[in-house]
């Protein structure tokens, strides 16, 4: 079409200026896409590394609570409180947990490991066992995947914990980061062994495994009603809520970074606006000519919009290609792992950024095109 041809030729005539305006769009698209891709990969990687499915309610004592029931500097959940929890959450199972850390020795190697004391029959509720079995005797222990890997632990290995020795009865599957327990770098021992070895009767936390996800709020409420009736004795979390909070936080980071990209697109839009206004003002006479020989207003408008559209298409096209590279670099720097780049959710930000880039160009070109179309033909013709 002739209007497209004229638009194309005017861009070619003002190549440097057009190139600079399109470069603004390139930068804007790259910023918006690669930031979006980074945010999306970040969210994906965090949600992936969280092992916890949203099926647990975690009950921990209120820390540093002032009052007479503060026996030690550390508050714990008492047996009486546990009984109350067990009663109100039934038929869901409440898992009381001792948690601590101690020096360990494996042959000549010395290290510090986390320790969890859990009733053997409840251990399968909390972790998956890769090999071996749940400890049958008090001095048996399960080794976390990372720990086992690092010190070459196998079923039957002996580990000195503090002044005692435990025998490894099994190795755990790798679990990833959790909100309740983090067993990868830990030993899981029986609750009886823990309480006798460290002389501790009260629990560090109680975890309720909720069978029906829809009961989570009811379980939380029941525990809080029972234990926090007078004072705030415990804090109750549910993993679903924490998960949602984290995902929400990362989504906000994504929105924020995308907004930064958006600002650079606004700047690009202003430069397109400028170039188009220039194009209109230096061609007033030409507009007068084409109007006088029978070009309609909307045809003049189309001619100038094509010009903006071509700039936007070039800018967004180059921007889309560079976004892939930009996203790759940003993700490999921030996450050291580019596998999330090839996820549809992440790649979506490339066409998204390109689309926004194109939209910004066309919107920026709208007023100059409208102005060109509405020039008075006689005055435009007289213009020198």
């Amino acid at each position, binding site marked *: 079409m*002739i209007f497209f041809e*004229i638009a194309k030729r*005017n861009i070619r005539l003002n190549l440097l200026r057009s190139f600079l305006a399109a470069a603004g769009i390139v930068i804007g698209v790259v910023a918006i896409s690669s930031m979006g891709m980074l945010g999306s990969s970040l969210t994906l990687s965090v949600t992936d590394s969280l092992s916890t499915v949203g099926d647990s309610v975690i009950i921990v004592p209120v820390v540093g609570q002032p009052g007479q029931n503060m026996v030690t500097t550390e508050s714990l959940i008492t047996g009486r409180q546990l009984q109350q929890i067990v009663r109100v959450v039934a038929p869901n199972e409440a898992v009381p947990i001792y948690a601590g850390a101690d020096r360990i020795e494996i042959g000549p190697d010395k290290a510090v490991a986390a320790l969890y004391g859990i009733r053997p029959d409840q251990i399968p509720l909390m972790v998956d066992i890769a090999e071996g079995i749940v400890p049958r005797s008090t001095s048996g222990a399960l080794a976390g995947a990372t720990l086992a890997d690092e010190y070459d632990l196998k079923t039957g290995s002996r580990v000195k914990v503090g002044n005692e020795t435990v025998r490894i009865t099994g190795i755990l599957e790798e679990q990833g980061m959790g909100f309740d327990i983090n067993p990868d770098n830990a030993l899981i021992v029986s609750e009886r062994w823990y309480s006798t070895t460290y002389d501790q009767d009260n629990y560090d936390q109680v975890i309720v495994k909720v069978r029906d996800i829809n009961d989570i709020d009811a379980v939380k409420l029941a525990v809080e009603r029972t234990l926090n009736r007078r004072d705030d004795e415990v804090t109750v979390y549910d993993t679903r809520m924490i998960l949602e909070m984290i995902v929400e936080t990362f989504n906000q980071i994504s929105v924020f970074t995308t907004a930064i990209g958006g600002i650079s697109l606004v700047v690009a839009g202003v430069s397109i606006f400028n170039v188009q206004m220039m194009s209109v003002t230096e061609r007033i006479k*030409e507009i007068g*000519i084409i109007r*006088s*020989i029978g*070009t309609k207003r909307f045809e003049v408008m189309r001619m100038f919009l094509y010009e903006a559209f071509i700039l936007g298409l070039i800018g967004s096209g180059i921007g889309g290609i560079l976004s892939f590279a930009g996203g790759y670099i940003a993700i490999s720097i921030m996450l050291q792992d580019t596998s999330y780049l090839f996820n549809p959710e992440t790649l979506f930000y490339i066409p998204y950024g390109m689309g926004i880039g194109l939209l910004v160009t066309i919107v920026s070109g709208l007023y100059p095109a409208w102005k060109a179309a509405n020039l008075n033909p006689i005055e435009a*013709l007289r213009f020198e």
Partner: protein
Amino acid sequence: MEEEVSAPVCNGEIPEDAVIRLEEATKVYSLPFGDVVALDSVCISVMPGEFIAIMGPSGSGKSTLLNLIGSLDVPTSGDLYIDGRDTRTLSDDELTELRRDRIGFIFQQFNLIPLLTVLENVEYPMILKSRQAVKGNSRARDLLLKVGLTEQMLAHKPKELSGGQQQRVAIARALINDPAILLCDEPTGNLDQATGRLIMDMLSEVNRRGKTVIMVTHDADVAAYASRTITIVDGKVA
């Protein structure tokens, strides 16, 4: 009697079958420091096939008159009929179509489109009218050869041609949609005498083939080509 109280428009001197009828047409430009009456209650009629020269001092309103006839503008008051159509009832798009289909413009400054080649300049109004590309259509090429351009000039940009050659291209462009009326605002004003004469011969030839030609000029020699001269002074027909 009633009829004697309100005098008939333009004393009833405007024939119904005129191709252009200006009936007490007035054009006022509103400027910050006051109104300028560029045309003052003008009565003019042009019959089909006439060749008219419009003369008058600078600033007298000749271009304003030509712009009205070219439907680039409408009168502030009074009526203007082109081809029997009342221009004051037409929308901007309809006026534009009138210019595109019924009127050819020739300017002193040639006013070709600098981004288009010579051939494309002539094709342009045709594309506007037919709304499609005219590749392979030979009408524009034929017209250009007829007004005296050579085949190898067709791919050039207007700026690469001489003034006389550019004006020939402008004539070809004005004729491409086979208009009824040709409007020329000082068509020889930027040309030397010899070239001007060639252009005037061309316009006469176009007129002989039946097109109405209306031409503004300062030059009495140029006006001599016309069959009738209208003189404008201070926005009025003298």
